[in-house]
């Protein structure tokens, strides 16, 4: 369960907020992310993904149903239900002046 408004942690120290929730599981590669309020910790030596996720960027699941906001940058191979999450790009818009 990926819960709206909850913060999740990756083994590499990346942290995100769920802005659109869903029934599936967030993971770093095959390692499920931990909810920050669970009090759990990753076992020492848990591998972290290599992709550097940047502060303020948003990612979405392949069907767009689940979205997250990175609020602490770090390495992570971000997946939702095993599928790689995509960087959410803003739609290009022209000048309004």
């Amino acid at each position, binding site marked *: 369960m990926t819960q709206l408004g909850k913060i999740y942690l990756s083994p590499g120290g990346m942290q995100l*907020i769920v802005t659109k929730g869903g029934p599936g599981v967030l993971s770093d590669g095959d390692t499920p992310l931990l909810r920050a309020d669970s009090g759990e910790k990753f076992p020492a030596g848990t591998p972290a993904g290599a992709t550097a996720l*940047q*502060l303020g960027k948003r990612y979405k699941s392949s069907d767009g149903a689940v979205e997250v906001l990175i609020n602490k940058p770090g390495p992570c191979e971000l997946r939702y239900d095993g599928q790689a999450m995509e960087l959410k790009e803003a739609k290009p*818009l022209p000048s309004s*002046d």
Partner: protein
Amino acid sequence: MGDRRSRSAVATRRAPVVLFELLDGGRIALVTLNRPERLNAYNVAMRDGLYEALTAVRDDPHVRVLVLRGNGPAFSTGGDVAEFGSAPSPARAREVRWLRDVWGTLWRLPQLTIAAVHGYTVGGGWEMALLCDQCLAAPDTRFALPETSLAMIPGVAGTQSLPRLVGVGRAQHHVLTGAWLDARAARDLGLVSRIVPAARLLPAALRVARRAARLTPGLLARCKRAVNDGLDMPLDGGLRLEASLAMPAVVDKPARRTFHGQTAVSLERIR
């Protein structure tokens, strides 16, 4: 400077035009306009970078205070004249402003917003600062709304924010004439809360931010709502709003949950 999360570019460009950082364990957001070679003139890339940063702040419940500043010799000279007239059509321009509402997002942030300004703070640059809750200025700050000299209306909410802060007559004077205002005059009008030497501007803004960030997030947001929303109400409505927002702070935790419900109901009535 406490816990400083790594700097991130939020606009995709070789030199990011907006820098976004989280400080103090994520409680303070620092957003920096970073187009110093153009005096931080506001272009499409800056619009998109600011929108991304402001919506990230809006959606992060840990952030309690936003500090907005500019890199280089000026805070911002407002809209980039090189892009003036480049909108595909007036209708499309209006649609774009609606779709990417940077100024509405800044104004509606529940977090305390602090502008730390210096040098030219002009047009949309001044209007950006006017949308913030507090403004600290360096002694060299020069404010103006020159849009009418370009046959334009100040379009970053200046016609609405300025009269609410200084009254109709003074606001019309600045809107219609583009008259310059220095930091001391702006402080005398209540537009600037403090004048701080340029070298100490950011530390001073962060001190104000840290003091505010020590308040519980709910209290900070309620105080902001009481002041800002109350300004648009008759006094009677404002007093009821204040009473509604004040209740949760003085009762114990179980009762607070009930009061939150009642507050929501009474706020709906006010609207």
